[in-house]
């Protein structure tokens, strides 16, 4: 697209980004407020962070959340990548329509429906609710996001690389690990990160499927919010935001570096 950036474009971007970021910035600022009131500034203080780290129920919830996130993101990445391969590589198999529907539907499905149906499944098969049921539920809804992310990389993948490897005698499995996987790795990694943050943030599905001793951080924050707004919640939210933001920034820097390296390699190769 030709770039004629009008004043209208710039104004709409400034207003749009202010709308997107102002609430988050205010939330972070007031987590450092001296006063108990979240909306009246009384001076800088980090006391809410100190009280947060002394709050055992928050720390316990944080551990549960991290464990669920790491395990579910890993399994969701494996299953989602397989799902993406199935959708792009095998254009005809029995029930492909149903499979593609089951991958896309969870992306838009209201969480109350997914949560309720998973809970009723666990009850029907007599599975005690706890950290494992939350993990299974998270794998299920996050693997679809991974599948979509990886699929969008796979459709632009040059199949002739794989064919060359197979012609030279590599087995399909070796070809996948030596040729396909390295090429789609950035998509797989961002799929993992997406799955991890989705699991980290989920409230509704976790609340339905969790049992005693498996309170996640969003569930803890939610029950606290219902009692009233306190700077302690702002502090907890700020930490969550910081963790995710640092992760995203590191990933994008790594991505950029890889691209620069690749461009340099290509230049070097062209010179020879």
């Amino acid at each position, binding site marked *: *697209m030709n*770039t004629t*950036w009008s004043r*209208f*474009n*710039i104004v*709409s*971007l400034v207003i*749009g*980004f202010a*709308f997107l970021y102002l*609430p*988050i910035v205010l*939330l972070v600022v*007031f987590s450092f407020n001296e006063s108990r009131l979240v*909306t009246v500034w009384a001076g800088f203080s980090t006391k809410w962070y100190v009280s947060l780290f002394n709050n055992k129920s928050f720390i316990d919830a944080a551990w549960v959340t991290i464990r669920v996130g790491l395990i579910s993101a890993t399994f969701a990445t494996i299953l*989602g990548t*397989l*799902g993406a391969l*199935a*959708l792009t590589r095998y254009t005809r198999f029995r029930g492909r329509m149903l*499979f*593609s*529907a*089951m*991958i*896309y*539907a*969870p*992306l*838009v*499905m*209201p*969480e*109350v*429906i997914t949560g*309720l*149906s*998973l809970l009723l*499944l666990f*009850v029907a098969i007599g599975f005690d609710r706890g950290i494992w049921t939350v993990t299974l*539920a998270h794998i*299920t809804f996050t693997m679809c996001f991974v*599948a979509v992310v990886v*699929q*969008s990389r796979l*459709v632009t993948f040059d199949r002739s690389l794989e064919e060359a490897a197979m012609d030279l005698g590599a087995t*399909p499995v070796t070809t996948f690990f030596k040729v396909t996987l390295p090429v789609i790795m950035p998509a797989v990694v961002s799929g993992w990160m997406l799955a991890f943050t989705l699991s980290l*943030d989920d*409230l*509704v599905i976790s609340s339905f499927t969790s049992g005693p001793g498996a309170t996640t951080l*969003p569930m803890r*924050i*939610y029950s606290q*919010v219902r009692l009233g*707004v306190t700077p302690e919640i702002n502090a907890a939210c700020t930490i*969550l935001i910081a963790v*995710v*933001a640092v992760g*995203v920034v590191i990933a994008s820097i790594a991505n950029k570096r890889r691209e620069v390296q690749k461009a340099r390699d290509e230049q070097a190769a062209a010179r020879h």
Partner: protein
Amino acid sequence: MQKLIASVVSRLVISVPYLWMLIFFLIPFIIVFKISLSQVTMAIPPYTPTIDVWAGWQGLINSVSQFSWDNYTFLGSDPLYVKAYLSSVIIAAISTFLTLLVGYPIAYGMARAPATVRSTLLMLVILPFWTSFLIRVYAWIGILKPEGLLNQFLLWANVIHTPLNILNTNTAVLIGIVYSYLPFLVLPIYSTLEKMDYSLVEAAEDLGCPPITAFWKITFPLSLPGVVAGCFLVFIPAVGEFVIPDLLGGSETLMIGKTLWNEFSANRDWPLSSAVAVVLLALLVVPIVLFQRSEAKAQESEK
């Protein structure tokens, strides 16, 4: 031998995720439907009849004969539920339209930006999407409260003289939905606008077409696939939204996601909440199928 391995591998690649989704996505819906035909009782699990696989064929027939459509008749006859469905759809439709009004100029501005800033702008839109939904909704409580930051600002600027009551109204719910779902709408519109051939618009303008007419005749129709995908991504989950009406809405806010949650956790009426879920799904099945079709088509055209 090679052929055999290849066919085993391809079976595995397809069947593992397939089975997973059958067990954890499709079968649960069948269970929800089954329980929606049951009655609530004081027991664990709190519904009757329960199907006992060990009771054999006769036992199965006995349980099935106890199924009834009572929960659905109840949903249809109680105006509270009918109203909750209607107002969920209306609130979701209005907020989708508002999100489009806010989101389209952002996507358009991003697509028209110089290529060097574009990737930064893209990251700025994606970043809030990585931040917790709950946190973003929570942030608005402090802003919209009667003694909150918005009222403080408006009173200070002398725009109003008495604080506005926005929190715990439908207006707050609309603001919450627009805010939370904005990136879902901006991204697909941006990706269609970015691929668009802008010389078409220039040609129209050279031939004397006013810029606004050129926008409505060329740019907007070409961005329609993105607009449609984005609207689905906002509308479908918004109909069943629970967190936003619960935290920002008030007693006037009737939304079906909240009703389902209350029926389930406060009243412990699992059969009725299952029936609520089945009807909600029936309402959403057409938009979900349309969304899935448009996504699959978009993926095919990338090839």
